[in-house]
């Protein structure tokens, strides 16, 4: 009997140690999701916190109840606790545990719906969003700046404090664009253009990675997002225009071939490359994606996260 008890103790101690390790290190900045630097990530973190608290409210009592019951009603000859083998109904109790989860789900559901709608569009304020077009390739990320006319591979420079409207597509298998410290991810899919807005409030370099499996080189599908002050961003654009080669159609064809590579910078890129890519990969089958023919501007993308095709 004693042996069993010590064994259980050992188990519990082990658990506790793991839990402590997790909790304690939870404060370090390596926990990217818990240390967002922009409004999107912050709202998501808020929801994460809220949901954690709500589920804890339900499951902690479950644990306590279970350990209490198992201890109280264990099968020992000297156990004096009540034994009622036919006690099997209670309207009140059942009402309670149909009721409480309904309330919890109600609260969390409401918060979820609210956040879902809140994150659809960048906030309407005076700051004009920056548009960055993102093409995921095997196994690299191409960033196109339609208004600045520069392009980069595997890193993306953005100004701080400015909402960035990422337009996402893929010219390879599906991938997912994820920069944990800025906010959640969105899929990149060939033949489709999707939108995700993010914003960095602090200057810094943020880890980004493809989050949906794309085959052999997937583990190396990493990129950086570098947030810098407005001034710095503009001077970076100027400098890039002067000191780097342009991305040509042939250059793009080469990029498209499956490979793993480092970072690259281009002073220019073929006009309409993004739309042409979407179109060539079957964009014509996504009604509502383009107002007019190839080369035209996507009128609205598939809304932020909305696709007209129903699927």
């Amino acid at each position, binding site marked *: 009997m004693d042996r069993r008890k010590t064994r259980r103790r050992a188990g519990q101690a082990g658990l506790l140690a793991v839990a402590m390790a*997790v909790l304690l290190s939870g404060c370090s900045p390596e926990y990217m999701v*818990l240390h967002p630097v922009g409004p999107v990530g912050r709202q998501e973190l808020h929801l994460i916190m809220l949901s954690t608290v709500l589920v804890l409210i339900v499951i902690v009592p*479950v644990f306590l109840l279970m350990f209490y019951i198992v201890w109280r009603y264990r099968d020992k000859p000297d156990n004096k606790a009540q*034994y009622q083998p036919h006690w099997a109904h209670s309207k009140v109790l059942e009402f309670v545990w149909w009721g409480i989860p309904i309330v*919890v789900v109600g609260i969390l559901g409401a918060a979820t719906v609210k956040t879902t709608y809140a994150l659809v569009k960048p906030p309407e304020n005076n700051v004009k969003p920056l548009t960055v077009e993102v093409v995921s390739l095997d196994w690299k990320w191409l960033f196109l700046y339609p208004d600045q006319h520069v392009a980069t591979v595997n890193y993306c420079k953005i100004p701080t404090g400015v909402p960035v409207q990422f337009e996402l597509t893929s010219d390879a298998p599906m991938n997912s664009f994820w920069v944990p410290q800025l906010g959640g991810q969105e*899929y990149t*899919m060939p033949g489709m253009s999707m939108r995700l807005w993010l914003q960095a409030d602090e200057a810094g370099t943020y880890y980004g990675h493809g989050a949906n499996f794309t085959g052999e080189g997937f*583990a190396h599908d990493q990129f950086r997002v570098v947030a810098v002050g407005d001034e710095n961003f503009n001077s970076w654009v100027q400098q890039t225009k002067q000191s780097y080669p342009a991305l040509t159609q042939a250059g793009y064809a080469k990029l498209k071939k499956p490979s793993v590579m480092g970072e690259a910078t281009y002073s220019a890129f073929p006009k309409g490359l993004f739309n042409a890519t979407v179109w060539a990969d079957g964009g014509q*089958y996504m009604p509502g994606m383009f107002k007019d023919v190839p080369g035209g501007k996507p009128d609205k993308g598939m809304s932020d996260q909305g696709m007209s095709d129903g*699927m």
Partner: protein
Amino acid sequence: MWEAIRHFGDTYLMWREGPLIWGSDVLILLTIIGIVFALTYLKKWKWLWREWLTTVDHKKIGIMYLVCALLMFFRGGVDALLIRTQLAEPNNHFLDAEHYDQIFTTHGTIMILFMAMPFIFALFNIAVPLQIGARDVAFPYLNAISFWLFFFAAFLFNISFVFGGSPDAGWTSYPPLTELGFDKGPGENYYLVSLLISGIGTLGTGINFIATILKMRAPGMTMMKVPLFSWAVLASSIVILTAFPALNVALALLLFDRLFGAHFFTIAQGGNPMMFINLFWVWGHPEVYIVVLVAFGVYSEVVATFSRKEIFGYKSMVASLMAITVIGDLTWVHHFFTMGAGPDVNSFFAVSTMAVGIPTGVKMFNWLFTMYRGRIRLTLPMLWTLAFIVCFAIAGATGVMLAAAPADYQYHNSYFLVAHFHQALIGGVVFGMLAGMYYWWPKMFGFQLDERIGRWAFWLFNIGFYVCFMPQYALGFMGMQRRMYTYPADLGWGTLNFISTIGAYIMGLGFLFIVVQVLYSIKYGKRDVTGDIWDARTLEWSLPSPVPHYNFAVIPHVTDRDMWATLKEQGRTGELRPAASDIRPIHMPNNSARPFLLGVCFFFAGLGFVFEWYVLAALALLGVAVCLLARSFELHDEHDLSADEIRRTEALSGRL
């Protein structure tokens, strides 16, 4: 000639790929030689054929499912240990990307389709007919066909690693990555064909058990007297019926794309990969309830038995099973919240997903209050059930967190998700299957599994579990993606991954203890002479262990929900013993080789499609047709078991 052999060796046997393949080759070869040798030496070929390969007895089919499930658990577990070994430290090169990708794909696919599924079918077969007072399932012949389709599908899937290459695009197998343009090898075909074959068999099982439970109950057993395990099987079978057609269609369409140049999912010609993703999850999400509902059924039996008490809130239990069945079919989009379905769709599916937590919670509380005011015996099935309550409550909690759509933008495809689903699949399903196995083992084999070794296995597996998967939640918050074969050193992921790997090995050790426990107990396990070793409550425990092949000499008339417990309480158990004069001859279905042969034909047809050897495929499909026609023309597929023989058998077990 020599050239041809070398070509064959290179392309199909992959001799150039190095030690991993050679090792597997040697292992497989040794196993085959071992089995053949043992059977020949012990002169067991005939026995194998007569008693097992051609059987249509639900109890034997259940045992065969169980054996396969345990073997596949081992195979999937070895995959898991390889995965964890590779991830133990940053920049590791124990496995290369190609093999790692194959291994996590086969790990996931095998664990869900070739471990969890046969495991639940094992329990379906072992318990349901006995619980509801039936002689067999509704369609014993179909039952055998389902088993052999599963068996040969699993076989086909398993040989892929050493014959042509395994699939490597994840168990979800999304196009366009799995289209010919990106994935030329036969691996993906293996995945599609073998899942299709086992999928057909699974539909057969679903139909079979719905019919069994609705139509084969003993007289007097109204639906509100059906034991909760059988209710759970009914719920699970209904989900099978509604979900599996979607999987089969998804697989077939992708196969058409790959083999016949169709364009369902190739975007440039107008295909739409998101259609695959929808079809896949229209099956894939309900699939997790298919397996977990059965585990819920096991817990209901175990908790009542080992608390020596009626189940609390029986009607709520039934209602919640049905609620999960229905709501579970309406949540699939939560697997791709981040695929741009728009806020309306995401909101709907977020809330519907969370709503599943409500009936599940009701079950949790009813189990707890079944124990309340009971007398709790901490036997192995009960230990696993308690472990389940803790583990699954956490799994459900993280599931509800995932269901908050905007938050899922941060969890999706990260290790947070990996931790969630292992906690649900292991804490919910594996624990439940083990509890069920321990619970019904004496009924199947007539002896109990050793408790002491079992406790070692229990603690190792549980401690290993938390050490392995708790750190993965943290890794998710650290931004680690799933399906990376390696990761850089500078992100601080190393330590937690290392801990996780240690946990995996502890679980492996726990599994080894189970193996030891089984081997030890065959020889030394406590024999079950009463047929009611747990002092349990439902009809199957009124029969001797192991159960005679006709199950009930005389079908009982059911008057109570926990019939056996009531009779014991009132000292009326004698009433369930057959009187010699009541025993009549029983129709028993004949054994048949055809289900097995049908499986063989499907295997070769599958192989033919995998490698596009269409002549082979056509011949094998012809074989299928011949088998089916032969069955159609079979006039007498039953024989009579004489009353005398039944009396003799009953007398032998001391019941007459």
